[in-house]
């Protein structure tokens, strides 16, 4: 890894220099909600944000996405992709994108996702956990790859980790804004990370989690939560690794149609439905349990399907807590 320092006074100029690499999206606060929005000025950005409602997956697996356009009886690929700069992505979301990469870039490659990933620059930013975060338990609190530049907060600026050739080119283009790191900076960096590591309030016991959950298939805890859960699918929408999508064709006019894919949720009754009306997950219990199994699946090459961002907790209208459910299932087994 290459490390440089971006002094506070150069931050704005550095930020402005990013615009030549693509449309810059950064976290913006509107009332109580943060979201990635197009930004022009540093003043618009909420640098100390906790989490955006929709994770950065919305840029790559879009909520509603045109795939193909029907013109004169033939499908044409829908519009191309513009280069974007995602500024201020947290470590957990970078891990989330890497999990999506495993799915969408594995053979056969999803061409839409690939094109967008190739046209994006990811600039990470350090954060302080709040009461919902449990990324430390899953090892996703620090990103070692998956970004071009990563900015770590220092008292007088930013320690910048350069994570890719593209990142190097970006820094190289504004070389005069960066300085070499001093001993003091490294000390401050370590102190920040230590403080951060000690600030987590939520911990997930992932020891043997997959096996434990599998054994607890008939746990009464699932039944308890079936009654609490509203089945709204909010947790799916805001999850950085949930990626189920539905496909449908929409007519634009008598001669033109578009094939659109949009987010789907495993909490919807239609998710497990097949032709003729048979449903493989007919009850809310089936669907609730399925989501926890899917999130807690451990892929030897990609890790857990959960990054501990805490969105499902924060945006659950029934106040269901992910870690609490898993802990209760574990307790029920002992």
């Amino acid at each position, binding site marked *: 890894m290459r490390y440089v320092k971006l002094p506070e006074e150069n931050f704005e100029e550095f930020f402005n220099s990013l615009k030549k690499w693509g449309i810059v999206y950064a976290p913006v606060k509107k009332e109580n909600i943060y979201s990635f929005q197009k930004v022009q000025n540093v003043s618009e950005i909420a640098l100390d944000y906790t989490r955006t409602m929709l994770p950065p997956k919305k840029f790559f697996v879009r909520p509603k996405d045109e795939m193909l356009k029907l013109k004169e009886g033939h499908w044409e690929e829908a519009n191309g992709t513009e280069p974007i700069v995602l500024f201020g992505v947290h470590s957990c979301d970078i891990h989330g994108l890497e999990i999506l990469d495993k799915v969408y870039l594995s053979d056969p490659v999803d*061409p839409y996702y690939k094109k967008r990933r190739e046209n994006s620059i990811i600039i990470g930013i350090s954060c302080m956990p709040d009461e919902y975060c449990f990324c430390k338990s899953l090892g996703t609190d620090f990103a070692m790859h998956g970004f071009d530049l990563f900015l770590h907060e220092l008292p007088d600026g930013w320690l910048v980790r350069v994570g890719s050739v593209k990142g190097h080119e970006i820094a190289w283009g504004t070389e005069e804004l960066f300085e070499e790191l001093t001993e003091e900076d490294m000390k401050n960096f370590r102190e920040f990370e230590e403080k951060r590591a000690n600030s987590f309030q939520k911990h997930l016991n992932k020891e043997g989690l997959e096996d434990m959950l*599998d054994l607890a298939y008939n746990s009464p805890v699932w039944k308890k939560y079936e009654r609490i859960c509203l089945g709204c699918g909010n947790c799916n929408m805001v999850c950085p690794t949930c990626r189920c999508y539905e*496909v449908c064709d929409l*007519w634009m006019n008598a001669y033109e149609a578009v094939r659109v894919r949009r987010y789907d949720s495993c909490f919807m009754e239609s998710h497990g439905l097949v*032709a003729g009306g*048979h449903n*493989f997950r007919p009850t809310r219990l089936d669907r609730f349990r*399925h989501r926890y199994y899917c999130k807690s*699946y451990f892929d030897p090459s990609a890790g857990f399907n959960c990054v501990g961002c805490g969105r499902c907790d924060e945006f659950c209208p029934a106040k269901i807590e992910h870690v609490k459910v898993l802990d209760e299932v574990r307790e029920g087994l002992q």
Partner: protein
Amino acid sequence: MSFQTHDARILEVKELTSREKLFTLRFLDPEINRKFKYKPGQFVVVDIRGFGEFPISLCSTPTREGYFQLCVRRVGRMTKYMHNLKEGDIVGIRGPYGNGFPMEKMEGSTLILVAGGLGMAPLRSVLWYALDSGKYEKIYLFYGTKAYEDILFRDEIIHLLKHGEDMNCHVKLAYEVESPSCIYLEKGYSPRVCKGVVTDLFRGESFDVNNTYALICGPPVMYKFVIKELLDRKLSPGRIYMTLERRMRCGVGKCGHCIVGTSTSIKYVCKDGPVFTYWDALSTRGLI
């Protein structure tokens, strides 16, 4: 890969029953036609432009080149649209997808095909492949159907009832609803045609379990009973193959609709299946 489909022309539409039609198709582009290779048990996604897509298993055999066939049951909006198509009409096709039955691995063995209702469609591919290649010791087809009118590929089945033995193919049929036609069949081919369920057809049959594979396809409720019958005869769970249905949207393991399993084993039916062994079902919850 893109989700673009290739144009295929409907060469023939044949009414199999009041609900099912058999479509014979060929790609317009001869190059794509030549490249289109598939295995019994694989499926394609049919694209009705501007209306949507649906996955469907191939019911023809790769041993007969130049065309492929799909047996479509009218159950919803898309399949209803498909049923209205005529000879010469064009649909889009992408695929083939999925793993298919391991036909080469099973060479030299006895195959027991157990079909229930529409499950006959993918197994017809296996049946004709096995008959064409002549590389299998003996082929059993146990077919459970509701009524005489519901027998898929009725002419072919009756032909095999008559002449199957000459080809080492032993066909048995179970029906649920009595009708003059069924009684007529039963009289002609007793005891191979009988009233009852598909598991009744196992009665009186014995297999060398070390050289036999079972291939099952049918409605979800059927698997449990058929598998019990096979396990009672000591057939290894690794020798029982079944092809499953889920609501596959993408066909390539992205859209998530066909994910089954729990935290220890997640599988995509479209990509890891749709053909699974019973051992897979034992180690992956929710498969059957």
